[in-house]
């Protein structure tokens, strides 16, 4: 079985997550070749065919050009699976390849079982087992679901260049907003999730954080709703944290949130929903209404 892995490169750097693709190919027991749009000074350590396009010519984000380049690599390599990370680059590009090849796409794979793929659904509360019904298939893998394969070897480079034009113009990057809270340094984080119900309840969660000598964290929906500043957001698009104690208050546990906090030493989740995905990473799941439980715990701590 042959896989063509689509590596990632951003702001002049190879992304480490590229090595998760190699971990996936190993888990599948498949041969791996790698495609990347990068600069020659920043090549992955990998001992196979590397299809390389120059980032200066093809841009770091240009789905029209990257689609054409990947199709060239598919033509030469003839892989069974074309594998992306399920990331802002991967989920944007993968369906374009699937459409051109009229190949099945299976998104956000969390595990391999008997040659079929497990994917999350219903906000990560459930799983489906899926197989492609086409000879070739496009896959995207969940961030962190497969172990990083240690970088090793040097690649055999096959250079590619795009010939077509593009309907898109990549203007540039906008840096992340400055953080006024460095959650990475906090020993205790108490995070407010949508389950707190309304903005007026944020001080209740903040009071618990202060009672434990910690900082206030926030899940994405709470930040999007404007209840808490973005600088407190925990998760893929916010901060990645690993405090000694993490208390998730009314946080359902979207994968992007779990990816940002699951390395915490000890995790307590308070949630009304016993099946909420946060339970998968929690050491203790307290099944309760957080707006009853949190103030009681704060009061008890003050005694």
């Amino acid at each position: 079985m042959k896989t063509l892995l689509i590596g990632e490169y951003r702001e002049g750097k190879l992304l480490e997550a590229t090595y998760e693709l190699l971990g996936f190919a190993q888990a599948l027991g498949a041969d791996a070749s790698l495609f990347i749009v990068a600069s020659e000074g920043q090549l992955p350590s990998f001992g196979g065919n590397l299809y390389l396009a120059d980032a200066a010519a093809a841009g770091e984000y240009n789905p029209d050009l990257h689609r054409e380049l990947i199709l060239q690599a598919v033509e030469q390599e003839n892989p069974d699976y074309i594998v992306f990370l399920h990331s802002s680059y991967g989920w944007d590009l993968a369906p374009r390849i699937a459409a051109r090849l009229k190949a099945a796409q299976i998104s956000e794979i969390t595990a391999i079982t008997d040659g079929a793929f497990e994917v999350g659904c219903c906000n990560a509360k459930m799983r489906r087992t899926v197989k492609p019904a086409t000879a070739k298939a496009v896959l995207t893998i969940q961030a962190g679901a497969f172990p990083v394969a240690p970088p090793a070897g040097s690649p055999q480079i096959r250079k590619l260049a795009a010939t077509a034009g593009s309907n898109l113009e990549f203007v540039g990057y906008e840096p992340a907003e400055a953080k006024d809270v460095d959650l990475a340094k906090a020993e205790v984080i108490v995070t407010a999730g949508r389950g707190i119900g309304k903005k007026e309840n944020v001080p209740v969660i903040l009071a618990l954080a202060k009672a434990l000598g910690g900082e206030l964290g926030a899940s994405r929906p709470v930040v999007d709703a404007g209840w808490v500043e973005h600088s407190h957001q925990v998760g893929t698009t916010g901060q990645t944290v690993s405090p000694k104690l993490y208390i998730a208050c009314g946080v359902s546990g979207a994968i992007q949130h779990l990816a940002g906090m699951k390395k915490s030493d000890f995790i307590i989740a308070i949630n009304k929903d016993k099946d909420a995905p946060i339970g998968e990473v929690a050491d203790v799941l307290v099944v309760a209404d957080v707006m009853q439980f949190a103030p009681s715990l704060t009061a008890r701590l003050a005694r």
Partner: protein
Amino acid sequence: MKILVCIKQVPDMESRFKPDSKGVWYSETDLAWRMNEYDEYAVEEAVKLREQLGESCELTVLSIGPDRVVEAIKKALAMGADKAIHVQDLEAAAKDPWQIASIISGHAKEQGYDIIFTGMQSQDRGSAQVGVLTAEQLGYPCTTTLVGFAFADGVITAKRELEGGVKGVVKLKIPAVVTCQLGLNIPRYPTLPNIMKAKKKEITAIPVAELLKEESLTATSSFHPPAKKGGGVVLEGDVGDLVEKVIAILKDKTAVLR
């Protein structure tokens, strides 16, 4: 200008999901339904653009599914869409993203929309494919995961959300497809007068067989809860008792109370 916004109706994600009789998707009994959250942002952005462009612009909302999806369509009409397409399909949940995209592109090909908005993914299926596949099937440029959108002189300026809070700025000419991320805007609540006005707006029903020409490219064999990783303690009961148990655990397992 003709704008299309595609929406899906999904169950409330706090529901308990049980497998259906075939064991490949959830059973629809005892579920409360709502508009897919990502699509609420898509509708809001489309309505804002409709307001920017004024009377020269027409905004159509499209949804695929059984009669229950008309509720989601009515919400989009009350938010400000002008008219609606309901693609009637009792089996929509069994279709894969390639087929769903082919239904949308089958309709859109006839209509010549200038901009198509979708959510970046659905909350239930979560494939993040339909918008991009629709663009490919139509031959339109496309960009995804929008947290910023502006339109002027036939050019969209889109701000994409990347990992770690970084954003990527992209320009593309219409016709185009864009997919919307959470936080793009603040979706409005329909007001009572607008809900009343929406009742008079036209909803055209199209049987799915008129638009669907494609077979499924994937096969689902099972729908099940994730394997429990174990180790986690689940505490239930009276809040006072729960507080005492948590205090004991904090003393025993962490250093924060010492």
